[in-house]
């Protein structure tokens, strides 16, 4: 796993209170990891904080799996 993926995983485990082995690339935050709509908003905020990047709302809507987040951040984070 890349450095970005490790950091994403850590945030997801902490915010959603899930086991680390559940946080796989194709895990959907809502369907697989028990997040609700507010959790997903906060997750995006946590990614912004960790990677010092702004994620616009239309981009945030496309981040629904762990892999989506990793790909977006690998491409956009400094």
């Amino acid at each position, binding site marked *: 796993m890349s450095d970005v993926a490790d950091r994403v995983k850590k945030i997801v485990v902490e915010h959603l209170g899930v086991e680390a082995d559940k946080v796989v690339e194709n895990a959907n935050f809502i369907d697989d990891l028990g997040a609700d709509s507010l959790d997903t908003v906060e997750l995006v905020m946590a990614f*912004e*904080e960790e990677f010092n990047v702004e994620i616009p709302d239309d981009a945030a809507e496309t981040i629904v799996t762990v892999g989506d987040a990793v790909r977006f951040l690998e491409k956009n984070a400094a």
Partner: protein
Amino acid sequence: MRRVVVTGLGMVTPLGSGVDATWSRLVEGQSGAGKITDFQVDDLACQIACQIPRGDGTNGTFNADDWMEPKEQRKVDPFIVYAMAASTQALRDSGWEPKTYEEQCATGVLIGSGIGGIGGIYEASATLIERGPRRISPFFIPGRLINLAGGYVSIEHGLKGPNHAVVTACSTGSHAIGDAARLIALGDADVMVAGGTESPVNRLSIAGFAACRALSTGYNDTPEKASRPYDKDRDGFVMGEGAGIVVLEEYEHAKARGATIYAEVIGYGLSGDAYHITSPSEDGDGAYRCMAAALKRAAIAVSEIDYVNAHGTSTPLGDELELKAVERIMGNAAGKLSMSSTKSAIGHLLGAAGAVEAIFSILAMRDGIIPPTINLDNPSVETAIDLVPKQAKRKQVNVALSNSFGFGGTNASLILRRVS
């Protein structure tokens, strides 16, 4: 009207987590006050508070993780965590676990708070100013709203009946229990989880209450001596944090399932001072009328009251006004009455105070022990009423009255009777 009884008790207080830990320390005359160490106080007039002893959950300490998942705790102010702890304790104590849809719909929640999430509002305000609106969490609002204490409790335990909250400053806990009892009496619910919760020990709250000149400021080096209701050297209240929750139940419902019945709620009175935003009315009229209303509802003689758990916050004005109102209502029966202020030990839990103190009144009945008014060295006035100075007292208590009075001139009295 249907009869309403108390079948479960739960609390988190500055003397400990749980009814047993708190009550044993209260009866021993311990104080929950100490120096505030978790935020800056050197520029505050008041530097002390009664704070919940935190730890791993053993020996009466409070371990939040025992009551709410860490990921949920992160989203809410502590008043919601305290309510979750005390509610779970009370429901376990009552043995009531609503499982069927009908049972769930017949079980409601009425938990109030005086101020709710003031600590979180303070922090989020700083975030907004320093870092802008995009850094405000989606959990900011739902984690601060007062009725979210009841919201979380209802979700945790599947309680689908009335879901209500009271906000009447320092009378909140008493109003919550009284109003919930009425919902049961009128048939809106068979069981109610009711009480108050508060987490006001933060820099903004202390600064605000100090500005009202409500807090003790002369005992920063001897915090355990600061809360001293009726004593001539009292100089204000000591802020406390925690929650008190009871399970209220329709009498036949409780009897049918063989529940332990602690007490019956026989009287509930309310009144308004219509006088001043923070000061009690000078003649104690509001306090008198709310006790009188509770007595009328209870349909008992004043001489039947064995114990009053006073509002008694340790403020110069309030203590004596309440005492005079109690003397007036008791008349010739004042000489056999015991009245103590347990705020001497746990401080003033604001919106949780009335609920915690109703539970103390119930425990006094259960054990035949009246908790003391600690630090009462020299009463500021003479009275025929026994103020239970410094040491707990053995006395059979069949009927107890608990008073709460709040900013805005809002008053509530509860009368509880032992069920034989």
